[in-house]
């Protein structure tokens, strides 16, 4: 029977084994951090590498912590199990102030370090404004808001509705339900909603912004990879919330210019809105559910585009 006693000194064999085990955990954690990139979609905006870097770092650190805890649990289950008929108590170790301080200070330092890193990333993501001149393709320089050569941002107005996305290019008199963006060119969105909250979310860009009715929100990004991506409504917006998706096409400057030119000449027609078709089917079948808000009519646009072609992310 004793009061709290220090841990008995581990022998050198134990120390080496422990060091090896920690080394193994570090190796696995580094590997996990690398794997984390595979869990994410392709990187299609200049924000993506920043976000992914932070996430990989967190995965690595988190893996180490998780493995550490599981190791301790596993060790106690292996080595410190009670003997079958042993009903007696173990050593009455009530605590260890030094250990308490260590496992308060180290996590504090760690989370503050992660927070500091995250604030740096956040600041870079928030660095926006048409006069920033940053070269996202240049590995040497910092990634941030805008491409060099002081390209002015393209302006796109985004109108969110129950349940469709309309994109207007005010300078070019083009409207569409398929978002077209120019590679490496900054774009400023003006997000508005005609009815309820919506979420403007493009996973491949790693960016989302809630669209709030009654407000016009400016939102900036620069796409960095040619391809077709999904835009999904991320803030629950009613019955056909899940179907409120649109495609985002990132294309070369030439392709973008010709798309805009053709669009301006095209007559207005009904844009994409899967909710409208589903609602009509539902009415025809006889409703199988509860009363719903009627979908807004599809926006009349120059270029409806498609939302059923294969997308990269």
């Amino acid at each position: 029977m004793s009061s709290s006693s220090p841990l008995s000194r581990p022998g050198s064999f134990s120390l080496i084994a422990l060091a090896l085990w920690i080394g193994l955990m570090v190796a696995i954690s580094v590997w996990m951090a690398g794997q984390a990139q595979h869990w994410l979609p392709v990187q299609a905006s200049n924000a993506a590498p920043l976000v992914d870097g932070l996430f990989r770092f967190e995965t690595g650190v988190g893996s180490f912590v998780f493995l550490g805890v599981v190791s301790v649990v596993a060790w106690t289950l292996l080595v410190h199990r009670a003997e079958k008929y042993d009903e007696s108590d173990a050593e009455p170790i009530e605590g260890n102030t030094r250990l308490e301080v260590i496992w308060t200070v180290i996590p504090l330092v760690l989370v503050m370090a992660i927070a500091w890193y995250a604030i740096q990333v956040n600041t870079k993501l928030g660095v926006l404004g048409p006069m920033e001149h940053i070269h996202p393709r240049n590995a040497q320089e910092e990634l941030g808001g805008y491409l060099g050569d002081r390209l002015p941002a393209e302006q796109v107005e985004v109108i969110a509705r129950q349940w469709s996305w309309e994109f207007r290019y005010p300078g070019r008199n083009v409207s569409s339900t398929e978002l077209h963006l120019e590679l490496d060119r900054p774009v400023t969105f003006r997000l508005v909603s005609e009815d309820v909250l919506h979420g403007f979310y493009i996973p491949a860009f790693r960016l989302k912004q809630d669209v709030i009715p009654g407000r016009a929100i400016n939102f900036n990004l620069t796409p960095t990879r040619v391809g077709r991506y999904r835009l999904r409504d991320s803030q629950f917006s009613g019955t056909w919330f899940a179907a409120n998706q649109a495609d985002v096409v990132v294309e070369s400057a030439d392709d973008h210019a010709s798309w805009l030119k053709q669009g301006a000449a095209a007559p207005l027609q009904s844009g994409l809105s899967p909710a409208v078709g589903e609602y009509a089917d539902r009415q025809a079948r006889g409703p199988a559910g509860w009363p719903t808000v009627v979908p807004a009519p599809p926006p009349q646009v120059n270029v409806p585009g498609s939302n059923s072609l294969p997308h990269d992310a």
Partner: protein
Amino acid sequence: MTSTALVPEPLPSWRRYFGFSTDAKVIGIQYIVVAFFFFLIAGLLAMIIRGELLTPASDLVDRTVYNGLYTMHGTIMLFLFTFPVLNGLNNLLIPPMIGAPDMAFPRLNAVAFWMVPVFGFLLIASFFVPSGPATSGWWSYPPVSLQNPLGQLINGEFLWVLAVALSGISSILGAVNFVTTILRMRAPGMGFFRMPVFCWTALAAQTLQLIGLPALTGGAVMLLMDLTLGTSFYRPEGGGDPVLYQHFFWFYSHPAVYVIILPAFGIFSELFPVYSRKPLFGYVYVAVASFIIVGLGLVVWVHHIFPSVAQWMRNLFMVTTMLIAVPTGVKVFAWLGTMWRGKIKLTTPMLFCIGGLINFVFAGITGVMLATVPVDIHVSNTYFVVGHFHYVIYGAAVMGIFAAIYHWFPKFTGRMPYEGLGKLHFVLTFLGANLNFLPMHPLGLMGMPRRVSSYDPEFAFWNVLASLGAFLLGVSIIPFLLNMISSWVRGPRANHNPWNAIGLEWLLPSPPPEDNFGDHVPTVISRPYGYGKDEPLVEHQAEIERALTLAEATR
């Protein structure tokens, strides 16, 4: 001189549990049984949800039905299962643990309980009104929650707000009771630093309820006025602000998650010592950390709405959110320190505690990821968040609740639960929860939003795995229910301390008499969890033990 306090009563008749009783031990069981009834309903809704999500298309139920299902799944699980079951545990455990005969306000206690079936009825009734139930998620954000297509006064959303308001009142009444009881009715000699950790965490959690719930109630009153009276607190066209609701909602609902997890922390802190035969490592730090969590928990709510708020708010709340990892980590390390060099017994309660600890650490790591704004902007409102919170709630809190039920079952029913069924329940739960909720993380990272009744085909693989896990979880409840019913009816009789645990509740017969220690409350003379120290917890402990053993032998 007779000692009514030490005679094990004949097992109470089941009839007591169906009527209006002011005995905290009866109310506690009532809360727990009613809670599990609603758990089964909300669980059934989850099975249908996961059935729909087996395939990408919306092909099982109509989209309006799906939206009602997921809304009511969340609402029922939180307000009709989690909070009531925790209040049930508070009722059962707090008075005996501190040596009190009952709660400070027994009639108020009963009133708070009986409100639960009332608002439960309202929520279930909402499925049957013409407009259907609320369909805007358990958050009920305006303006979408204010869109009342049929235009009727009594609609699902109306009933939802009413139910949530009543739930809030019931919880506040309970909180007043629990806080007063813990502050005022402890046994002689039981200063705060001789109080069991479960009471510390209960005090912390109920303090959060008292501070946070009125904010939710205020926000909900304004929502109801907008819905029913045509005001415009949250309607932009009338000058209102939808984001204002989000602040009111999360000012409560973030602390609410600590209300949920703190009791689980308390349970783990009680059980790890018993099943490691070792004192709780760093008891004072664990106790104090509960209140640091309370303080920090009140200043982090904006992390739920990063995409809706300005940049300066994002950085500020990111930092406060990250800080909570520290007191939480102190508790996790304390449990590890308790197990280290202990004599571990892998009983059912211990298995649930260990599983809960591991799941909680995983959830804590994804929590830190969610706290960092750049990552959160990508994964907020996706399945990453759904995976995170189900790991905390099901993986940790519910496992803690199961651990508590198995551990204290003998004390309050007077019978032992079956160990084999218990272990089976654990294995199915641990496997099912991990299979159900782990795949949600890659889904969120890939960009699958939450609350969707259909999804793009590339998400199918992980969804199928998640649904299989959900069905396994559904099956896992069967051994639990069988065990509870069978053990209560015909399990072996339990003595006053089947686990050889240290605590005031274990110095009472199983089950305890109506007024616990009555007028003979022992004086506490040492800190809790004195395993291996050979010191009594209370004065005259040897005599009390002898009397209990004697009474059991002559039963």
